[in-house]
């Protein structure tokens, strides 16, 4: 494999030892060693045949005739969506009582769903922004899917607090709009911060996504055969020409918005966590909640990315672009974020226990041995034990196993929010208030409806937009060659 860039760079020089006296005195003698076979970095693109080939490879799914699985999937998603709409209509016309919420568990499934969906919505920005800033080029193959996932997940998430307020027609009270009643929202409330955080997150995610899409939309415009698609792709590509003067500003803007999105993604889930942590309730009030929630969001988001990407890559024929190495890397990130979540979970428990406050101690005991012990067990099993399988390379490369594990992680993270929300609320400070919370069928169907919303949008995205960031992929594919060439020159010059 000497023709590989990395191999080529180093084969020519394999001087094996340095003079001992030089070494002892510490004089510099960097030598070039061929990268050993086991440590060679695996390719990010399989079967690369040039820049045009990347376009063909990615656009193949968009340009072929509509497959039947797509129609069937859309049908199911639309059915769920209609179900969700009916449920919301029932809720709005009847009242919050159709859900299982009631004293003392005033926040039930709706809040859990909200936190769960918004958590999923974080992986997209994480992959696209944070990994971009970390110069992890592998993100390029999956960032578009993840960003789309983000936007649709945030839409689903935003739905729940809106319908949870009960009288939806007063939802505009949350906005600081000057009206004749002169009543303003008060900004001490975490729910107000939520409004701004989620609105900003949705807007910036869409902007970031769209910014990445513009050059690819131009590509689709240039490839489009039908006038109607050329018109629409042309309209949304804003007349992008691929001029280097445009690219020059574009790259800078992309970098800045990536930085902003990184700062944003951390803040949004921190603010969501403050919905809980700003209170005085044991189990909610913990200073570690902001970073804990952020890690949890990334963890669940990566779980969802795996759940989506594994089918997408085979259904859309993207195996050459989204390789097993990508899955492998996503699994590793999932494992890492999962470990941070586990750390926070354990630390929270330790501090609650050793802190010696009776209410905190009771909360921890109740979490493990109380009526919701099964939820706690599920969290431990799905969230902390299941991802441990990712330590093994064999598991990471077995797509079926990874997919099943990713589903378990999704379930585990949902259960974790359940433990936090319901587990802390159902036994409050006054024992006569204690109760056992159960969801109703409306809760379940509304949640199913949010899946309908999510998948309807997601399937439309798959069909009509480039699933992979083509221009970025071209950029890294080609730049690598030139970087390799230039660094070879640099090394030659040094010699």
């Amino acid at each position, binding site marked *: 494999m000497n023709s590989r860039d990395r191999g080529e760079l180093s084969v020519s020089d394999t001087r094996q030892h340095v003079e001992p006296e030089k070494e002892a005195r510490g004089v510099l003698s960097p030598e070039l060693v061929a990268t050993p076979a086991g440590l060679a970095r695996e390719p990010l693109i399989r079967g690369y045949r*040039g*820049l*045009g080939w990347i*376009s063909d490879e990615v656009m193949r799914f968009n340009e072929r005739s509509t497959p039947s699985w797509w129609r069937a999937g859309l049908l199911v998603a639309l059915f769920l969506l209609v179900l969700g709409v009916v449920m919301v209509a029932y809720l709005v016309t009847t009242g919050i009582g159709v859900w299982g919420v009631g004293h003392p568990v005033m926040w039930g499934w709706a809040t859990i769903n909200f936190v769960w969906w918004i958590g999923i919505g974080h992986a997209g920005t994480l992959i696209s922004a944070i990994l971009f800033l970390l110069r992890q080029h592998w993100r390029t193959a999956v960032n578009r899917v993840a960003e789309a996932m983000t936007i649709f997940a945030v839409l689903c998430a935003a739905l729940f607090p809106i319908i949870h307020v009960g009288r939806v027609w007063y939802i505009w009270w949350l906005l*600081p709009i000057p009206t004749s009643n*002169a009543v*303003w*929202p*008060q*900004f*001490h*409330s975490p729910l*107000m*911060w939520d409004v*701004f*955080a989620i*609105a*900003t997150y949705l*807007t*910036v995610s869409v*902007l*970031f996504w769209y*910014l990445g899409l513009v*050059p690819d939309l131009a*590509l689709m*415009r*240039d*490839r489009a055969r039908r006038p109607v698609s050329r018109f629409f792709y*042309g309209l949304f590509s*804003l*007349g*992008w*020409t*691929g*001029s*280097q*003067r445009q*690219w*020059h*500003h*574009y*790259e*800078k*803007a992309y970098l*800045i*918005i990536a930085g*902003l*999105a990184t*700062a*944003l993604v951390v*803040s949004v889930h921190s*603010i969501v966590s403050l919905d809980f942590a700003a209170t005085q309730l044991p189990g909610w009030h913990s200073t570690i909640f902001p970073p804990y929630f952020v890690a949890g969001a990334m963890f669940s988001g990566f779980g969802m990315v795996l759940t989506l990407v594994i089918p997408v890559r085979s259904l859309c024929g993207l195996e050459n672009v989204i390789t097993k190495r990508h899955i492998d890397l996503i699994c590793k990130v999932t494992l890492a974020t999962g470990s941070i979540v586990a750390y926070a979970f354990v630390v929270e428990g330790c501090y609650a226990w050793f802190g010696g406050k009776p209410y905190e101690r009771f909360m921890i005991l109740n979490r493990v041995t109380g009526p919701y012990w099964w939820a706690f067990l599920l969290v431990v099993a799905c969230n902390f034990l299941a991802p441990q399988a990712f330590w093994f390379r064999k598991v990471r490369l077995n797509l079926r196993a990874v997919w099943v594990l990713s589903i378990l992680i999704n379930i585990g993270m949902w259960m974790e929010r359940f433990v936090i929300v319901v587990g802390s609320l159902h036994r409050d400070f006054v024992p006569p208030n204690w109760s056992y919370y159960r969801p109703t069928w409306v809760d379940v169907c509304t949640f199913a409806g949010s899946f309908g919303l999510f998948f309807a949008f997601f399937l439309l995205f798959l069909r009509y937009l480039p699933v992979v960031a*083509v*221009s*970025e992929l*071209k*950029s890294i594919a*080609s*730049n690598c060659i*030139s970087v390799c060439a230039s660094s070879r020159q640099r090394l030659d010059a040094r010699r």
Partner: protein
Amino acid sequence: MTTESNNTNSVGCGAGEYGLIAEFAGPGEVLRAAERLRVAGFRFWDVFGPYPLPGMCAAMGLKRSPVGWFGFFGGVIGFIIAVAGIWYLNEVHYPLPIGGKPFFSPFSAFPTAYELAILFAAIATFGGLLVLTGLPRVRHPLFGHRRFALATRDRFFVVIESADPNYHRENTQRFLETIGAVRVEVVMM
């Protein structure tokens, strides 16, 4: 447009002529060509390709993009608007005692102000990008060119506009060919 003669070599610019488009074989070739074109003193010209070429900014002599300043000031303005707004609403116009906290506190105003700063910064960056790149632009003379659609695919083009003071159809065409262009054609308006 008639023949101009105010410049020494600016002749032969036909009516309705947008410029010359030169196709290059690959990124390395176009990079070297850009270097030569900058040295030759062209002003209204550009390189087109499917992705941003590293080193092209230096080769074309482009300055640091000012788009960051849009973002910076957007963020500052967003932050100030949020803090001032919250102060006015919660301290002046409609004070509410909540949880024993001061009516206005920089701590509880911070999350909202932070979000608004990011919102404004992102929108300003995006807007700044549109301003600086002159987008959206629906019509462009190059869109009419037969092969230009390949610029988003895998081809690299250099376009020299006829508005350039150094532009001369034949001479520039010859110059482009000497610096490695594979194919040079005239683009009409």
